């Protein structure tokens, strides 16, 4: 059993905290590092799409838990997948 990233779209408020907190995202995008959402289409781990978090490139995830800590509503989690 491996631990991986899971998003619960039905719980998500779409605040985007996880998108900007994620160190992998912020390394890949200056916009994200600056606290904004991505202004161009890049390979990010997760983005906010239609008002809720959407996982995009989970294979980039280093499973550090920063996004989990940043989420106010437990809508993104590291758990057994």
């Amino acid at each position, binding site marked *: *059993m491996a631990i991986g990233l899971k998003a619960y779209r039905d719980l998500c408020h779409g605040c985007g905290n996880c998108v900007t907190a994620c160190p*992998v995202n912020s390394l890949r995008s200056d916009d994200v590092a600056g606290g904004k959402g991505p202004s161009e289409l890049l390979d990010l781990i997760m983005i906010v799409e239609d008002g809720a978090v959407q996982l995009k490139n989970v294979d980039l995830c280093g499973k*550090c838990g920063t996004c989990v800590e940043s989420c106010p509503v437990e809508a993104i989690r590291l758990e057994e997948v």
Partner: protein
Amino acid sequence: METTEIKEGKDITVERTGEEERKLLFKDPLCAVCGLCETICPVSAIEVCPTGAMIRTEQDTSKIEIDENKCVLCGMCSGICPFQALDLQIDGESIKTMVEYPQIIKSADIDELECIQCKACETACPQDAITITRELPKRADLITGEIEIDKDTCIYCGMCEEMCPVDAIDIAHQIPSSDSPVVATDIEVNEDTCVHCGICKRICPVDAIRQVCRICPYGEYEIEVPEVTGTSYIDPELCVNCTWCQEICPVDAAHVTKPFEGELTIDQDTCQACETCVMVCPCNVLSFPKSEKAGSKPEKLHKDERFCIYCGACEKSCPVDAIDVKRTKINYSPTKSKAWVKAFESLKN
């Protein structure tokens, strides 16, 4: 002959009984998720879970998984684990006490004769492994003087009792009645407790207290200061040999030998300050420095390598590969087994 695995909470026991009884014990709370066991395992039986996830987030599972179908109970994981999280026992005896097995050389001691029980190490220890107990003398033993209350003058107002910092004054208060029309019947000073500070004398509205401290007029040589006694204890299971106690001790009473030597490099440009490594590090090596003044930008991630044991947990946890842990020396006792030497040496990079 069969290898079985038992899980008790998050602790794991892998067992094989044949000509000898071999038991590999994993204690989850002690594991720092450094990944050395996974690296050294010659049969790839260990999988270490993602370090950041295990330390930063709530997980129901153990920090490592041991495949009992692959594990041959050789004990290499137990031999290398710097955190006492893994232990191989053969017929009830730990291989960490057997001379034929190479032993990681590490130690932490507090010299009882040197220790002054200041508790700096206890406060600094990142693993709460140190307990210092100390017996302090009575305050009154550090001072000498005389105190007397003139009960005829005293009006029993209780100001001295209320202000005394060491509760040395006791007044027998009462509600006046027709047969005893007074607010108190007696006032006592406990001379064993009194520190002769003179506050009672100064606050007394009727000048009923005579008090002298003998320290100032006669000099400090008058009294012998009683010794502070105490004990120190380092929990060998919790200690990670990080040298915090050694470095913070003001009297050089703590002595630590680290298990590994090496080099820790941080790529400040790649680091995104996610704090994972800071939380993961069992030795409090890493921190985020605050700006000293507005506009001055300190380094993103600060390290103090004096405390680093080069376990590699931070490197393993970093999601952007901004940390590099290089081990240049593994300190271990000699062994005749070439395979074990090779395995230990392979952890250098």
